[in-house]
């Protein structure tokens, strides 16, 4: 049985949330946020086309590199930092158990 993993998320008000995420449901971080009813719109449905799921990665977990689409969207997003990622491009896997992230401001 695949184990659930834990994600630590700081929302836009600075409040900390502990999210328990399944690794066998093909879910990404944007979807986990929506499942927890956090204020992440996911307007483009996860196509790396809207940046409404932007977050800052605050732990040093090994994440897959940004794809061309993600790079392109981040280059047109606002409030982008070195550690910015699109939540919809981060799949739930064992390797990111304990990941710490912070939501980027909404546009």
């Amino acid at each position, binding site marked *: 049985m695949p184990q659930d993993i834990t994600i630590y998320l700081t929302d836009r008000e600075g409040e900390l949330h502990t999210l328990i995420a399944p690794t066998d449901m093909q879910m990404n971080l944007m979807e986990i946020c929506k499942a927890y*009813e956090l204020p992440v*719109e996911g*307007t*483009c*449905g996860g*196509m790396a*086309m*809207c940046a*409404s799921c932007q977050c800052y990665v605050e732990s040093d977990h090994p994440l897959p590199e940004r794809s*061309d*689409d993600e*790079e*392109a969207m981040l*280059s*047109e997003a*606002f*409030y*982008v930092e070195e550690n910015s990622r699109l939540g919809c491009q981060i799949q739930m896997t064992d390797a990111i158990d304990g990941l710490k992230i912070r939501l980027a*401001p909404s*546009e």
Partner: protein
Amino acid sequence: MIKTDILIIGAGPTGLFTVFEAGLLQLKCHLIDSLPMPGGQCAEIYPKKPIYDIPSHPEILAGDLVKNLEQQIAPFQPGYTLGESAVSIEKTAENEFIVTTDKGTQHQAPVVAIAGGLGTFEPRKPPLKRLDFFEDKGVSYIIKEPEMYRDKKVVIAGGGDSALDWTIFLENVAASVTLIHRRNEFRGALDSVEKVQHLKNEGRIQLITPAEVTTLEGESKLTSISVNKEGEILKIDCDHFIPLFGLTPKLGPIANWGLEIEKNAIKVDNTLDYQTNIPGIYAIGDVNTYPGKLKLILCGFHEATLMCQSAFKKIHPEKRNVLKYTTVSGVSGFDGSLKQAAKSTIKTIE
């Protein structure tokens, strides 16, 4: 004043299908949409992507779904007010509604169906100080009249198709065009990328990458902007700054119409007919919320169908009505057309 039976705000898949279900009940519809074309998210966000969960379509492109809907509702001759946003609503003495758009077009109907999806698509605005102040004083997000830029100094920011296309177009019109993007790669049609490369090589435009606009300057109107290019600050004199970062949906003015709002959506009575807290105003499709709500096209179709039955009772309280099958009754359009199943032939065999 445009008058109709059901005034539909939003011409996405839900709004379009409402026209069909209303038409079967002999009710006329008029659609308002802020986009210049019907189709909502399907047309604006993903027209070339396939959808796999439309019943009986194993696969259909979002753009084709919209085209099919337009064809299906054509016999019911819907009216369209496109490129205008519904901004206000008021009630008349006769209990009808008057909906006015941002361009002042007025519509009157006894029933209003809000099928506004995620809201009106509005330009994404970069978080720059005094950006709002300079709107219409040098800053614009949409190019309405290209002539406005004749012989002016224009700066465009963005890395997608619209930034590339307008750079190419305005190069012919403006005194100078500068294109600024946060990296060297552009996401756009290959053809446009090559054209911009060519214009740059010929020195006909200025391309500043990787760079970001940091400040807007000017007293009563925009006179220059400053750009951070890899740590170096460049000041560029300009008359116009056009940030082109695409569109994003915002619920917009509907949020102030006295409707109950929850989770950025309109609360409705889902056990009955998707009516809102204001009798006569319904909310269907992505724009509504109720326990168990799913934002799916097929759910929008279902909601539209139930809503039209309720609207019929509201508009014709004296008339009795029963559900009819289109196979049996056919579809009689307001244009005089009639679609009907072939009659069975009855003939004697001697």
